[in-house]
């Protein structure tokens, strides 16, 4: 590989490269768009069933055209044949799913394997039709990207245009279908027809993709870009845009790389490029990627842990003192350890975290004491917690014994604003309220509780 070749390829200097790059990129964009709805409809593998189901159509179309005295390999004829059996296959999947106890996967598997078997049987027969060379029909199985010509390109561009127009026209209906099909049909939308329109779009993409990237690899075009896009966003519009872009980029990358290195099948490189983008998205995707999700989880864990530590400390202070106002005294580690259940190594970790956040400080005696800000925070957290418990008991009719667990979770999830609202609703004016289901102080705590009022430190 030379620089010259690289720049030639990147600047699309050759007519052929330009044509193939744009053709495949358009195809990728279209497949990404349509595939998004398939993914959200949880029907990704339908493309698999469909692409296999096109094979008998190709064979039959070849035989019919040969019988009519035409050239058996006329592309439009073959594609029409592929479309017909492809659609038939999809309709059979829908029918099996609707009328039997069999689930999606089995319905797709049956159609896929039987149609593919039939297709191979028919192709085998077609190969032996005298006077017609069927060689190259199996190109549909593995694809022949580099041999794309102008008319193929025009076909792809038209399909892309139609797909975009249809998608925009029925975006609302498709969205409803994808997210809540039952609601959609209860609202009186013709879900069956929407499904059929979606399937028709998928069929169009698959059939066009057949000869560009092949029967197996077009499946990847329908599945991988939308799944990758899903990791970056929770909004449908963005997902559609991203998915189409990822499809186009993997198409461009695949074609360029296979043009640079001889003897690399373009279809396969496209799929590998898409898979690499998928892997990157799965790890780093901001909305649902593995790492961001992990960090969010850690953050939540820190927050919950902090609240547990501060509230426990505050409750111990309440239990070991009688009388208002509450004083911020050092408490022994032993009391803290016995106050609630701590996971293995959890308490030392939380104390380390609390010290770094300047909420607690270690006394020279080894006891723990809340800092100025920690005391305020602890009082706030405890109050929020009890507000919630009270709310749940009074308004949500939950047995008092079951409240604490829920309170924990809700408290961690809700913001200060809602808490203020609650406070107003419950008409509470005290800075701290008593726990509506107070846990009896432990024996230890009672022992440490002084009989007389203790002097301020």
């Amino acid at each position, binding site marked *: 590989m030379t620089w010259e070749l690289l720049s030639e390829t990147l600047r699309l200097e050759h007519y052929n490269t330009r044509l193939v790059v744009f053709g495949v990129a358009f195809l990728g964009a279209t497949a990404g768009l349509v595939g998004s709805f398939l993914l959200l409809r949880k029907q990704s593998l339908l493309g698999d069933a469909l692409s296999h189901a096109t094979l008998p159509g190709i064979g039959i179309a070849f035989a019919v055209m040969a019988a009519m005295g035409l050239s058996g390999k006329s592309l439009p004829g073959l594609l029409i044949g592929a479309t017909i059996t492809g659609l038939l296959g999809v309709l059979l999947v829908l029918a099996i799913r609707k009328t039997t106890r069999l689930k999606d996967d089995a319905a797709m598997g*049956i159609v896929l394997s039987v149609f593919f078997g039939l297709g191979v049987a028919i192709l*085998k027969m077609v190969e032996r039709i005298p006077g017609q060379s069927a060689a190259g029909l199996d190109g549909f199985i593995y694809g022949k990207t580099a041999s794309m010509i102008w008319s193929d390109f025009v076909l792809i561009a038209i399909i892309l245009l139609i797909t975009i127009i249809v998608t925009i026209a029925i975006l609302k209906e498709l969205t409803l279908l994808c997210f809540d099909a039952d609601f959609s049909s209860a609202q009186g939308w013709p879900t069956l027809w929407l499904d059929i329109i979606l399937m028709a779009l998928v069929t169009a993409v698959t059939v066009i993709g057949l000869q560009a990237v092949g029967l197996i690899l077009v499946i990847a075009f329908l599945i991988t870009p939308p799944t990758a896009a899903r990791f970056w966003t929770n909004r449908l519009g963005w997902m559609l845009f991203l998915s189409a872009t990822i499809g186009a980029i993997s198409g461009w990358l695949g074609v360029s790389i296979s043009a640079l290195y001889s003897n690399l099948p373009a279809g*396969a490189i496209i799929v590998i490029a898409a898979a690499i983008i998928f892997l990157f998205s799965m790890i780093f995707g901001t909305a649902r990627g593995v790492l961001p999700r992990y960090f969010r989880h850690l953050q939540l864990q820190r927050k919950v842990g902090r609240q547990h530590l501060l509230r426990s400390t505050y409750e111990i202070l309440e239990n070991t003192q009688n009388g208002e106002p509450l004083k911020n005294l050092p408490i022994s580690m032993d009391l803290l350890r016995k106050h609630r259940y701590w996971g293995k190594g959890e308490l030392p970790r939380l104390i380390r975290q609390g010290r770094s956040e300047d909420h607690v400080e270690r006394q020279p005696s080894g006891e723990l004491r809340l800092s100025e800000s920690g005391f305020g925070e602890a009082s706030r957290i405890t109050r929020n917690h009890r507000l919630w418990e009270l709310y749940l008991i009074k308004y949500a009719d939950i047995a008092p014994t079951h409240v604490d667990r829920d309170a924990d979770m809700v408290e961690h999830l809700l913001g200060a604003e809602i808490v203020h609202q609650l406070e107003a609703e419950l008409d509470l004016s005290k800075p701290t309220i008593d726990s509506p289901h107070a846990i009896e102080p432990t024996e230890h705590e009672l022992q440490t509780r002084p009989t007389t009022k203790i002097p301020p430190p």
Partner: protein
Amino acid sequence: MNWTANDFHIILVGGLCAMACALPGTFLLLRRMSMMGDAISHAVLPGLAIAFLISGSRANIWMFLGAAIAGILTALFTQWITRFGKVERGAAMGIVFTTLFAIGLVLIRKAADHVDLDAACVLYGALEYTPLNMVTLFENETSFFAVPRAALVIGATLLFNVLIIALFYKEFKLAAFDPGLAHTLGFRPQFMHYLLMTMVAVTTVAAFEAVGSIIVIAMLIVPPATAFLLTRNLPTLIIVSLIVAVLSAILGQIASHIPPLLGLPDTTSSGMIATTAGFLFLLAWLFGPEGLIKKQSKQLEIPHFD
């Protein structure tokens, strides 16, 4: 009709293979993972290619191992993507098998440069066009050993599957119907899942050489699905799907002789066996106890209730 001893051999190998596939297929169906067979049979390609690159020859134990490992990896990767990426299983499966298949294609293309490898042999032979090799395997009486070998390999696979299912029948049953309960009872559904996947991978690969992927995929799915429409009892389900599998092999081989009788060109046995299985499914779908015809007549009966 041009019926020869070869037909019996084909039926023997095809029938054994169909049964070997239908057994794990039944549990795949119950676990709603029927497409796994399709995914695995595509994804073994890089395994075959790498094994070839390492060992330098086709059709030996290395090929088998490479393919089986690739098959199990497919199940593993799918599981990981589903679990860690929270992606729907179908989509995860689709991504994994298309990617592995693409890697396989590249490897084979590259291998053909350096090693004396007939790319088409692995590509077509191991995937779509194996049945062509199989017919020649039987045509020639001098290579008599080839016939029992294929039947032996498949027979051994069938035996392996029967043994595993007999040993872990209870566990498989529980894991198929209630993985949650299986887990709480300590039956480790995860382990059963991977055992099932291993079975599918081994069966797929063993059957590859002899009959091609078409029969494998079809027999993993169609006979169990057909039986599923005919019974609601697990032992019966297994037996009926075995019967449907054998019937598909016999009737399919007979059907492959029909086109020449009509003046049409010859066709492949494996394609016709898969098609016949589909036809049997259609019959069950229409005429089974819960079939379309029965449903239709039931619907007509309803007005008589009042």
